[in-house]
């Protein structure tokens, strides 16, 4: 049977019905300078498979990959050791099912994994309930803001300057379409997080107060104080965790008064993956359960009284509630959630605490070593595995010079905040269990060298 595509008349009728002249009009939101206007320069129109493979291998050889160099990057994406068993287990045939494997009569294994995942996330965050995952940390953060708006029926969100700027950007993009008011601020190079400024900004119109923990500069805000201030004005506290390993060392946000806790789960089991796919984590107090977005898996019993698992509380979701659904997400990051769950199961509670302690120890050692370099100051009083140092000049240049010498030295704040010159001397440095003594020494010696030449 031949596949018969739409006729030009069909297309014209459909375009007319939505008020578009051409197919291109449907993509009017794509900036003109992001569009490809012709052939890519230097790219042959066609070549043999072997020639393409050699070309691609040569290009790949130009990369300085995370595993091949001393690596100190973080800022929302972390390089941790993933046990080989994680990748082995996620590839088992039982897990490689078709899209949307949620039917309880055929997918008990998948549903049980989701249930275990939710249990782990809820315990990690110190909240009553967690969903079966979201796309990534930034979209989970936006969903939390939207959820707080539904609970409080208020449209204003106060964002801490310590919230990752990409998360702020995601919220601002979404708010353009929903009419929510996003009150964001830039961080300041200070050892103190901006708790006082955030508290001062909360008013009777504020529905959500959003605080990252640890924050973008690695500092640890006083969640209990912010929670009290938010609740006094009838607002909800949303806490964002971009590095879940940190929670092996610091108190779970839910135990400090957070109403909604969201995060990026990439750290555990997922890997850097060139920036995605990642894993959005989402948990909340049970009293807000019916305003939560996303899939939820629940435990039940079957007709014979045996333990089983089903998706539950679907009346929140789009396929039932249509435009009044809590969110348009109708899926979850199943494979990444599975990897997270396996890694977390291998670690266990004690293993996670040990992992966090090793991370902190490595970071402390890195900070102490870097502080010995003339002109380099460590900003933080307190941190887990990520901290900020202040250099004598724009850190972007230092990062570039370090990379040229085979060291991935950190994330320059100028890259995250190009408009904010006051931050440009800041360099965000992360150490994990993968960081060796040699890595630390190489970073310190190379940075000292780079700064001396720059002076």
């Amino acid at each position, binding site marked *: 049977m031949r596949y018969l595509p739409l006729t030009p008349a069909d297309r014209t009728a459909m375009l007319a019905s939505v008020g578009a002249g051409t197919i291109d009009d449907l993509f009017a939101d794509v900036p003109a300078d992001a569009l490809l206007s012709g052939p890519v320069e230097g790219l042959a129109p066609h070549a043999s498979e072997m020639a393409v493979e050699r070309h691609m291998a040569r290009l790949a050889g130009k990369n300085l990959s995370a595993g091949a160099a001393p690596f100190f990057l973080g800022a929302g994406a972390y390089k941790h050791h993933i046990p080989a068993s994680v990748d082995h287990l996620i590839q088992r045939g039982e897990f490689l099912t078709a899209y949307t494997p949620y039917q309880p009569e055929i997918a008990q294994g998948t549903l049980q994994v989701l249930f275990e995942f939710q249990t782990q996330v809820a315990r990690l965050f110190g909240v009553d309930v967690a969903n079966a995952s979201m796309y990534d940390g930034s979209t989970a953060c936006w969903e939390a803001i939207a959820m707080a708006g539904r609970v409080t029926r208020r449209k204003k969100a106060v964002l801490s300057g310590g919230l990752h700027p990409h998360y702020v950007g995601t919220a601002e993009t979404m708010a353009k379409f929903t009419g929510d008011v996003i009150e964001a601020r830039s961080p300041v190079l200070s050892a103190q997080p901006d708790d006082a400024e955030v508290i001062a900004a909360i008013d009777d119109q504020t529905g959500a107060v959003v605080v990252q923990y640890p924050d973008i500069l690695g500092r640890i805000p006083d969640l209990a104080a912010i929670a009290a201030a938010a609740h006094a004005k009838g607002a909800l506290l949303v806490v964002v965790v971009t590095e879940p390993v940190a929670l092996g060392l610091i108190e779970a946000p839910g135990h400090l008064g957070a109403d909604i806790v969201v995060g990026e789960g990439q750290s555990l089991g997922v890997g850097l993956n060139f920036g995605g796919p990642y894993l959005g984590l989402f948990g909340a107090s049970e009293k807000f359960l*019916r305003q939560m977005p996303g899939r939820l898996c629940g435990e039940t019993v079957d007709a014979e009284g045996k333990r089983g698992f089903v998706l539950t509380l679907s*009346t*929140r979701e789009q396929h*039932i*509630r249509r435009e*009044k659904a809590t969110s348009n997400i109708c899926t979850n990051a199943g494979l990444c959630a599975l990897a997270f769950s396996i890694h977390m199961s291998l670690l266990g509670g004690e293993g996670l605490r040990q992992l966090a302690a090793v991370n902190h120890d490595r970071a402390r050692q890195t900070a102490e070593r870097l502080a010995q370099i003339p002109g380099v100051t460590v900003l933080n009083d307190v941190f887990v595995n990520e901290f900020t140092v202040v250099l004598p000049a724009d850190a972007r240049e230092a990062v570039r010079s370090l990379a040229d010498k085979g060291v991935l030295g950190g994330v320059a704040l100028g890259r995250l905040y190009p408009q904010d010159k006051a931050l440009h001397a800041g360099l965000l440095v992360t150490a994990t269990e993968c960081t060796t003594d040699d890595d630390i020494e190489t970073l310190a010696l190379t940075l000292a060298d780079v700064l001396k030449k720059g002076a």
Partner: protein
Amino acid sequence: MTRYFTKEHEWIQVDGDTATVGITDFAQESLGDITFVELPEAGRAVTAGEAVAVVESVKAASDVYAPLAGTIAEGNAALDAEPELVNTAAETDGWLFKLTLTDAAALGDLLDEAAYKAYIAEL
């Protein structure tokens, strides 16, 4: 005391400036077993036609609208523990919320019992 109805299948019992609102027996019958009722908090000012409560059944989640403008006086706390009251006693103990009316004389487009019965007979 007079009882009124809406085409959204709510009943409204008006007593002075207080209106008690619930869903009709016809509505609960159509929804099936009710598992949860989300109620508005007391003190919330509402406009006529605003969605103020949600009735969740095994089949669907349906909004319940404020039939008239006013302020929520109370939600039926008994429904937290016993949402099935809406099934067993939709037009009595299974009421959803009480509304202090802004203008007790403005009964808008509310139907009387005969008109509502005629309306559902057509459905």
